[in-house]
Every structure is written in structure tokens, then in C-alpha cells.
């Protein structure tokens, strides 16, 4: 089975470092800053695959490199090394990093959607909810106002955004409602791969739960391949079947989500689970 998304040997170093400075960083050294150059090895040797209909969790504390990985995949940042492949691009035969920035960005329209923790990153808050969805649709070539309205309405309905709010600026929406609009926008053109970066972090508990439910339903129904980045085991447990644990820029453990929660292997994973389980 061709994975919908495949990441191989992804690495990202900030600052003056080179690949030579990877030595001396990582969980074994308890640091991400290269002792020789001061470069920050934010992520290194990160590999995984996600199949259609599957959700992979990436869990770790802040600074573990999990968001860096996501940003490298979606193109917000350029990785230092490694490859990223999508089944929807050349059948997985092309490393996205070899694409021009323009083509890379164009993937965001209908191949690789991102849902950010901060809705302001994925949305234009000045625009209406419908307008945000319309941006994706027009980017994909939709040119019929009535049909754009109809599709936007469908998505609002599907993401539990009241239709009578569809024409209001997203700026006036609550956090949970913004996140729903962001989901609607991300799914506008039925992308086969969706990346979710802490999608419910920062929301009130009850709002977070309902957004989480919505995401879970959408992932199940749409058959997308999802990567869920989170520090929260409740989110990972609810949404994913598999998970990787990141620490100091490296994957320290990969496994089934229930296995990681009940039988974590790596000392760091055990600590993380132990802390989460109180």
C-alpha cells in the first residue's frame, strides 16, 4: 500500500550549525543546541508513513521538535535534510523538496491541508467564514459564485458552524468556532492528507472536546491520512491509531497508540505517560 504521506530522514537545524553538529545533540545528550556550533538541531532523522484513512500522532513536549516537523512537511519551513513524499504527487515518486516553491505552495490548495493551533495562522480573520472557504475554492479554480456559496454552506454545516454566521468576519468568532472554520477551509477541496498542529490546544475544555469530536468524525468519514501533532495524550488517544514520541528533536519511540499509553518502552515515554496519567 502506497502511503499517502511518507517522510524519510527529515532534519532541521537552525542557526549556524551543519549536519556535522548533530553529534552531541538529542535525547542522549539532553540538548538540541550543538555544543560545537551553537546550531539548534530542532529535528533529526524523523521518518514515518501515514496511509489513507489513518491518523498518526506526533507527541512530545514543547520544544521537542514536533511542530518543526509539521512545518517542514507542509512547507512553512525548509528542512535541512530528508525527503517528503505524497501519493498524490507523482505517485509518491517525487520528493516535495525538489518542487519549486510555487508548486509546493500550490499543494496546500488540495493535496496537503494544515490546521494550525492558532486559527489566525490558517485563516484570514478579516474575511467572513465563507470567504475563507472561498479562498481555497477559488484557488482551485472555482469561478461560480452560487456554487462557491453552496459548497461553503455544505462545509459550514459539516463543521457545525451555524449558517447564519457564515457571512460574519471570523474575527468576531469564538476560538472554537474559528477552529471549525479552519477545518472547513482545510477540507474545502478534499485533500488526501491533513496535518493538524495542536488543533484544540488553547480552547476551553468543553469546546476542545466538541472540536475533537468533530475532527474525529471528519477523519473517519473522509478517509484522509492525518498527522496529529499534540502534547496532549487525550487528543492523541482519541484521534490516532499510531503515534511517534519526540524528544529533543528525535523520535524516541514509535508504536500503536494504545501500546504507547499502556506499555511505553522508552524511559522518556514512560515519564511522559506517567505524568499525563497522574
Amino acid at each position, binding site marked *: 500500500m502506497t502511503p499517502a504521506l511518507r517522510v524519510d530522514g527529515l532534519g532541521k537545524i537552525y542557526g549556524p550549525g551543519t549536519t556535522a553538529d548533530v553529534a552531541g545533540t538529542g535525547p542522549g545528550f539532553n540538548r538540541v543546541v550543538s555544543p560545537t556550533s551553537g546550531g539548534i538541531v530542532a529535528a533529526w532523522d524523523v521518518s514515518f508513513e501515514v496511509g489513507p484513512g489513518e491518523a498518526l500522532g506526533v507527541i512530545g513536549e514543547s520544544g521537542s521538535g514536533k511542530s518543526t516537523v509539521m512545518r517542514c512537511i507542509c512547507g512553512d519551513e525548509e528542512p535541512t535534510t530528508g525527503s517528503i513524499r505524497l501519493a498524490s504527487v507523482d505517485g509518491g515518486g517525487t520528493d516535495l523538496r525538489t518542487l519549486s516553491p510555487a508548486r509546493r505552495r500550490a499543494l496546500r490548495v488540495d493535496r496537503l491541508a494544515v490546521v494550525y493551533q492558532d486559527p489566525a495562522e490558517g485563516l484570514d480573520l478579516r474575511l467572513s467564514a465563507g470567504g475563507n472557504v472561498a479562498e481555497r475554492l477559488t484557488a482551485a479554480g472555482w469561478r461560480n459564485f452560487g456554487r462557491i456559496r453552496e459548497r461553503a454552506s455544505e*462545509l459550514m454545516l459539516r463543521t457545525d458552524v451555524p449558517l447564519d454566521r457564515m*457571512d460574519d468576519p471570523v474575527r468576531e468568532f469564538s476560538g472554537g468556532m474559528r477552529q471549525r472554520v479552519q477545518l472547513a477551509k482545510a477540507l474545502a477541496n478534499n485533500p488526501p492528507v491533513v496535518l493538524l498542529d495542536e488543533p484544540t490546544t488553547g480552547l476551553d475544555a468543553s469546546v476542545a472536546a466538541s472540536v475533537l469530536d468533530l475532527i474525529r468524525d471528519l477523519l473517519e*468519514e473522509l478517509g484522509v491520512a492525518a498527522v496529529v501533532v499534540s502534547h496532549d495524550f487525550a487528543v492523541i488517544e482519541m484521534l490516532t491509531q499510531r503515534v511517534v514520541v519526540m524528544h529533543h528533536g528525535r523520535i524516541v519511540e514509535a508504536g500503536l497508540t494504545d501500546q504507547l499509553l499502556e506499555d511505553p518502552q522508552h524511559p522518556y515515554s514512560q515519564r511522559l505517560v506517567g505524568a499525563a496519567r497522574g
Partner: protein
Amino acid sequence: MGYVAARGGTEAIAAAEELVRRSRLNADASWLELDQLTERLRYLNDRVMGEGGLWAPQLAARAIRQAEGDVIEAAHLLRAHRSTLPRLCELIPADADELRPLRRIVPAFREVPGPQLLGRTLDYTGRLLDLGDEDQARAAAAAATAAAARHPEDDPAENAGATEPPFPERLLDVLRRTDLAVDRRRDDDPEPTDISQVAVRPGIGRSAVLSVMARAETGALVNLWYRNILGPDNHLHEVTLGEVRHGELPIRVRHPRTGNPVLLGHLRATEVEAIEDLDGADEDRTRFDVGYGLVAGHNERKAIAMANLDIALHRDHSDSGLEQSVLMTTDGLDASGFLEHLKLPHYVTFRSMIERKQAMRTDRARNERKGRRHHPAPVVTPAAEQAAVPAGEVTP
């Protein structure tokens, strides 16, 4: 018919132009001589040359006189004049180390290699309006001029640095020697960009950015500096000045046939090196950052603003908009030209605007009759609902 093609406008502007010309001549005063501007309104003349991008004291004086003292208008005259002149050759980049200082101060140290040379400056003159007798002043001026003509070597302004080595070592060299300064000299931009020959836009090399600032409207640059220190943009920190110099800079061209450098002459310039602490999380806090300012003529406030903005620009993240602000919004001619064009007829555009207002009203009235918003969210049809709500969610 009372409606004559083409003639009305031509006559009106000809009449206005004639009025300007006559009023200029008719003033109840003697003719304004160019040397009164170049010699007695030095800062004004320098500023017009700097913002006009042309070193030509006599022409600048003409421009100021013609513009009746409007600095931007005068700079415009200089630049428009330059447009008519062919570009015969390119200058060899001047070496600022050859600047012969008429004034030099180094606030960062009490004593430095080379002189602290106060020179000609208004800095410490009492800001008291001189209400002295005009006739006495006139006589004093004549006497001083005559005396200077007899003994040019006594002219304090001209010979301020005569006893010192002409090219004192820079503070920056001291800092570099002690490894205290980040080196901002770059080799990716070897030939200075002539901003009169390209359309600058963000991403252009540092030499172009510096040139834009050197030619910027003084007030615009000072304001940009100030709003970045105090205002919401917050890109700047106050610097320590390493060098403030005003002096004469030799200008050379390459001979078109032989390729040898040929001295054309000198221009006066103000040079500033500014020093700032590096305090960003990803910066080397053990060193200082350095910014550079160089403007034509004697204009210290502009050169200081420039040096400080230079630091802000290379420390700043490219998406902050500061670079675009510097490049695109500090030119006096651009800003004032665009602003003043609002005085031109705009009745075609205004008619179109009224028409849209009416169209909106018509649409609103139509919808109000039907009792709905402009574009109600479409009623999702059962078919659409099926597509929108995948199986399972519809509870009977």
C-alpha cells in the same frame, strides 16, 4: 456653444505660470544671488543636493530660488534636470577613508585615535533668536568676508583639521581589532547600485538601500527613525555613535579609454557609524552591531537616522515591512507628488463611485422588498446534504 475644445486649460495654465514668473521677479527686494544661497544657507543648499541626488551647489541654489524655498520642489527641479543629462560614465566607488574631516566627533569614547574635532556645528550655539541690529550684522559680515579673503589660512571652518593627520583611524577599526564588532561588510553587492537606474524593491542589495536612504527626504527618514524608536513599529534601539564626520570626499571616474582613475573633484559628505548592542536571542551578545550612514552635504540628523535604520534593517526579519517602508515611502518627490496629485481632476472616477453607491442602494432596496439579506446562504438541497454529511450523521 460656449465650449471650446482644448483652449481653456492651456490658457489657464499659461496664465498661472505667468503669474508665478512675474511674482518671482516683482518681489519688493533685491535679486537673490546664488552665492547667498550656497554661502549663507548652507544647510538648505546641502539638503536640496542630497534629496535631489545631484552634487551641484550652483544648480541647487538656482533650484531653491526658482522653487521659492520649497525644498522638495527644489529637489524635484534638480532631479528633473538630471534626467535630461546623458550618463557618460560611472563613478569609481569613493573610499570614505579618504574623507578629509572638517568636523569629527566620537561620542563613544572620551579620547580616541585622531582628533575630537567639533568643527562647524550649530549643536552648541545658543538657541536664542538673534535680534541684533541688521546694519551692524551686515557690516560685520562684510568685514569678516574681507578678512578671510586676506588670510584664508585663518578660516576656522576650512582648516579645522589641518594640524591633524587627515584620515584619523576609525573607532570601528579599534573595535574590530579587539573583536568587539560584527563585520557587516559584504561581498555579495560589490558594485554600488545606482538607484536612478533601477526600480528598487524589497530584496535589493544593501548598497541600494543605503542609497535610497541617502537620497530620502530628511524629515521622512527622521520620522521613520523616531516612530521606530517610540512608535508601534518598534524595530529600533537607541545607538551609540561611533563616528560622526563631515568633510570632503574626493570623487573619481575611470577614464573611458585608458581605464585610469581621474579625479573629478570633491563633494562634502556626512558620515556616521552607529554602534548597537546585540541582544536578540539568536545573536552574538559578546559583540556590537554596526550601522552606516553617508549622505551628501552636511546633514547629520539624516546620516544618524540612516545609520540606525541600517542596523535595524539587517537585524530585522524580512517580513516586518521595515525594508519596504525605507525603500518605498521615504522619497520626498514620490510622497509629495502622489499626495498633491489629489488636486487633479477626478470627476470620471467620482462618477463611477457614485454609480456604485447607487447600485448598492438599488440592490439593497430590491432585497429589502423581498425581506432578505443580499446573498442568503443557499438552502442546502437534500442532494447536497447527502454529499455534505457523509453517511451516519443524519439521524431520522
